[in-house]
């Protein structure tokens, strides 16, 4: 995502190396994604679902 848009930066953080950060963001399982200090996403998700959650886009209405 970062490579596709200059407004986006993406960090991959090794949770056991940076324990202070892991504690700050309450990382109890991985992967855990934090967006702008506010959005928290637990686990791995399919591409569209992940991007929706990262960008805080509304969910698609169920068919």
């Amino acid at each position: 995502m970062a490579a596709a848009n200059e407004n986006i930066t993406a960090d991959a953080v090794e949770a056991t190396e940076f324990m202070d950060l892991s504690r700050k963001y309450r990382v109890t399982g991985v992967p855990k994604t934090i967006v702008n200090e506010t959005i928290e996403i637990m686990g791995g998700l399919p591409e569209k679902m992940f991007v929706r959650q990262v960008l805080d886009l509304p969910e698609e209405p169920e068919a």
Partner: protein
Amino acid sequence: MGLLSPQDEATLKAHLSSITLPVQLVLFTQTFGGSESGDVAKQILNEIASLNDNISVIEKNFVLDTEDKAKYKIDKAPAIVILSDHTDTRMRMYGAPTGYEFVGLVEAIIVAGTGKIDLDPETMAWIQAVDTPTHIQVFSTPT
């Protein structure tokens, strides 16, 4: 002794062969008072770079190289900044890229080295519409 087996090296070399753009891996480590994972990160990056002439490693000191640290907004080490032809891709890795994280590093290098992003067109449109600063941090472990 290398970290990669000869078979893994061959596989990785083939995977990296799609790279056509120069990729610089800027590695920030801290010599004194820093983590030993800095040495591991250095060894991993050097092994990757040895497999493709387009990939180079630039070493920086987390304490002394203050200008570059500010330029790339690095606040912890070890840190890897991935440049595509000297342009910041805004992709960072913090910690030694071992285990599953090695895969993420390789994929990021391929994005930087090919300029191709393999995402669904609709997803890409959402991403390209972002017009406010968005900082994503993904926490993971090697296993």
